[in-house]
């Protein structure tokens, strides 16, 4: 798998242990976590047999060496499931949920495992449902610009299937060659080209889901404005805590007539970040506006040879699309804004080959960085775009304070930062330092009026950071919504929402208490 965790085999136990201690210290309380882990580890043979009967023996993995890969996603977290199963039909999914209820075992949905916040990890063991066998594009309706897909369809494959009809699926996470639409729906994924066209939630019309009770229901409809509360709006981005998605109806966009790709090259970071605010506030919304700082673009250039200038402080990679007339005049306007803000040079990609090469550099950046460091920690913060200059300066200070190289490659146009903190996970002190540096960056984002995650999700990485932006009352309403749909905590337990303060309350709602009577 192309985007399998590249640090597989590097001290994974240490990472897991340290992060669990440092990050989720809340559960170290008495026998809590241990007890749950053990309970999950004592997966009953009967459940495995029932799962094999339902799905076939080769669709159920349970031997330790088979489970190893499923301990990981793209984040620095790890957690081992009790078993991994691969349904091929929605009836299989319903059957698995019924078994999970009967055996009181948690369930965690998983697409391609490229997530960056631990959303697809079985935090407390249990069944991981891999959706890779439910990977059919059921319908592409060109006339109505809709597609119906199973959750395991790979993001880029949907756009590839729609391309001959002049259409594409707009949300394009950097992992789009591997990540699945089901995973995108769970995380409400973004990507570089969501600046003008919106993120996953803006493109999902309807979902078919299996609730933790085993009910198969449809939310929303292919026709817009389904009467009633916006349930698809609630379920998209709920990180697998409310339901398992078995079918998705999405909106497709018409491929633009013209796309202009600009590379603006700067000698200072401040000029670059000020240009971003000037472009967005100046009346043009580019299709994408990405920033790569000097260190990152040098790392990328050594790997991809995209033609990034090695001696610059930063570049902006900007796409402008639309009709010929609109794209051409807007590209000229954007180039002028860049020059006014002291861009050393503004290059325009001459053809599709040049354009693809620049974007290949952007989309393979994380892989390129992997060549320079044994481990990196990708952060995901979001700030108002006007606060980019001081935030980038603060990240430089934090980098110096902790002594880590921090690369910046991110969706500048929507203020969505991705600092890459380079460290050696084999050194526990470094790991703690990296987490502390990341926390300091996120805290600064919040001070700037931002949020703790722009597109990677909260998962098990940032549940403890939720109180930075939400009060107890805000979190309590969210908890009640989760508990209304997932009353026994069967689905993806202990994600998104921090546990209530105090041990007593933690155990007032035991997890995984699947099958217990709703509170």
């Amino acid at each position: 798998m192309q985007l399998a965790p590249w640090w597989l085999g590097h001290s994974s136990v240490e990472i897991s242990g340290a992060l669990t201690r440092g990050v989720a210290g809340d559960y170290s309380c008495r026998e809590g976590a241990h007890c749950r882990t053990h309970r999950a580890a004592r997966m009953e043979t009967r459940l495995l047999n029932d799962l094999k009967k339902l799905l076939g023996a080769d669709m159920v993995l349970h031997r330790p060496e088979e489970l190893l890969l499923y301990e990981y996603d793209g984040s620095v977290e790890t957690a081992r499931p009790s078993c991994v199963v691969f349904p091929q039909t929605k009836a299989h999914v319903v059957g698995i949920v019924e078994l999970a209820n009967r055996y009181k075992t948690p369930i965690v949905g998983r697409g391609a495992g490229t997530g960056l916040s631990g959303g697809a990890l079985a935090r407390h063991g249990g069944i991981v449902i891999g959706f890779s066998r439910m990977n059919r594009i059921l319908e592409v309706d060109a006339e109505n610009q809709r597609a119906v897909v199973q959750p395991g369809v790979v993001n880029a494959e949907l756009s590839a299937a729609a391309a001959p009809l002049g259409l594409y699926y707009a949300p394009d996470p950097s992992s789009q060659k591997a990540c699945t639409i089901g995973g995108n729906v769970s995380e409400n994924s973004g990507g570089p080209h969501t600046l003008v066209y919106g993120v996953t939630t803006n493109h999902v019309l309807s979902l078919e889901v299996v609730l933790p009770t085993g009910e198969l229901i449809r939310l929303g409809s292919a026709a817009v404005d389904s009467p009633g509360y916006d349930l698809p709006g609630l379920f998209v981005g709920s990180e697998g805590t409310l339901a398992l998605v078995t079918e998705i109806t999405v909106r497709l966009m018409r491929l633009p007539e013209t796309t202009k790709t600009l590379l603006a090259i700067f000698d200072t970071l401040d000029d670059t970040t000020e240009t971003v605010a000037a472009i967005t506030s100046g009346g043009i919304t580019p299709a994408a506006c990405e920033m790569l700082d000097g260190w990152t673009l040098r790392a990328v250039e050594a790997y991809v040879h995209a033609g990034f200038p090695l001696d610059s402080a930063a570049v902006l990679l900007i796409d402008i699309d639309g009709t010929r007339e609109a794209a051409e005049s807007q590209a000229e306007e954007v180039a002028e804004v860049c020059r006014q803000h002291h861009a050393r040079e503004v290059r325009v990609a001459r053809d599709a080959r040049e354009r693809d090469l620049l974007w290949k550099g952007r989309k393979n950046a994380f892989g390129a960085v992997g060549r320079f460091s044994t481990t990196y920690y990708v952060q995901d913060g979001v700030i108002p775009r006007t606060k980019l200059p001081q935030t980038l300066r603060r990240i430089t200070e934090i980098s110096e304070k902790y002594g880590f190289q921090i690369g910046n490659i991110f969706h500048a146009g929507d203020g969505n930062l991705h600092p890459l903190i380079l460290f050696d996970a084999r050194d526990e002190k470094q790991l703690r330092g990296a987490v502390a540096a990341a926390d300091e960056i996120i805290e600064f984002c919040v001070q700037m009026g931002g949020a703790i995650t722009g597109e990677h999700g909260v998962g098990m990485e940032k549940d403890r950071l939720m109180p930075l932006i939400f009060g107890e009352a805000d979190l309590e309403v969210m908890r009640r919504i989760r508990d209304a749909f997932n009353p026994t905590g069967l689905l993806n337990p202990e994600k998104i929402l921090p546990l209530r303060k105090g041990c007593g309350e933690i155990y007032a709602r035991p997890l995984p208490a699947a099958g217990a009577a709703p509170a």
Partner: protein
Amino acid sequence: MSLASKTISSRLPDIVGAAHVINDPAQLAFYEVDGKKPGAAVRPCSREEIAEIVKFAAAENLAVIPTGARTKLGMGLPPRRYDVALDMTRLDRVIAYDPADLTLSVEAGHSLSKLLGVLGDHRQFLPLLVPYFSRTTVGGTIAAGVDSPLRQYYGTARDFVLGMEYVTGEGVLAKSGGRVVKNVSGYDLHKLMIGSLGTLGVIVSVNFKTFPSALGSRGFVATFENAEGALGMREHVARSALTPLTMEILSPGVAALFTGDAAARIGSGAMAPHVLSAKHWAFTSGYAGSGKVLARYEADYRRMAEELGAVNATVLDDNTRPPAFSRKREFIPIALSASPATTIMKISVLPALMKGALAEAQRAAESNSLEWAAMARGIGVIYVALLPRDRDEQSRARVANATNEILAAAAKLDGHGTIPWAPPEWKSALKIWGLDRGDFAQMQKVKKVFDPHGIMAPGRFVGGI
């Protein structure tokens, strides 16, 4: 004075001051919802006061309906009970506006048109050209979930509301989302509030993504002998590289509505003659951009219209566009004042199936001897106005027949429909929220979380929620 009224008049003045509690029956008539008058109206000026009021109402089991400019209180089913009108119009402040970041946070009681004035000073706007535009509030617009012609390009509120602060039915002040344009921190609970008609809680403030204003805009209207021509234009545009801001198909009946007295009162200025015709279907579209872009749209539109055999094609400029397009924005109030018993349906189908849905609507209206007019948005939403001459038993029976037929036709086309506007005394005979849905039980779960005591606008929503 009822017991509820006594309880209300003893406690509410403590919270907001006596000057902001209305007990006078004449004034309370302004807060009527489908003929039901509240026991009191209260005008809070802060989120804390709202929380106090709702907490008190929850403790006393008083039913609360939040109100703004009171333009859309007739939507949905009649409330089962109604004790307190929560008038939000004193919460009318802009909390934060960062033009360079294109984000805005505003209190729910703020006038929408005034807000667009503030944004206009910075050459920005919100794509909410909604009915009752000059009067409506931000909160009322969001809570009613009414759409705007601009949704063709910009989407609906769910696509540009970034976050919200609200008071739940238990009087708890809570928020979700944030003030940044991209954010996946926690559940998007604010999406549930959009279109919820006040049944989940009180929207206190809304955070929006704002948009830069276009350099220049034009409108285009082409008329056709039949619906196929006008719908054909939509299909041609959908297959082209053009991305217009608005796209509507108007039935022949719309011409009479838009040139009538009501339209002259509600729309701005007189509409240019011959733009619409009472005999023809019309395709209308708005687009924006530089001079070159506008020229491209005009050339492409004229070519498409000619290919499809248009009777007439007109380009609307800065003088002729506002009267025509403000009427399109105000289709609902114009239609409501055109008959003593106007009933308006909202039908959604896949865009390519609009032809069938419009044909069924026409057939159902005409076979029940009802005047009718329809405005169909390019993305697959059709507003069908049924315009009986009288508000009598016979008309009610005809409207009930016609709406049932149209709802069934929409369902057959894998679509759905509702009846957002109808005479209150007819509502029990009409399927206001359309046909039964499979996800109703899930909506009840949501309602129970936000409003466990069932005091927020009880009864107005889907399935009597």
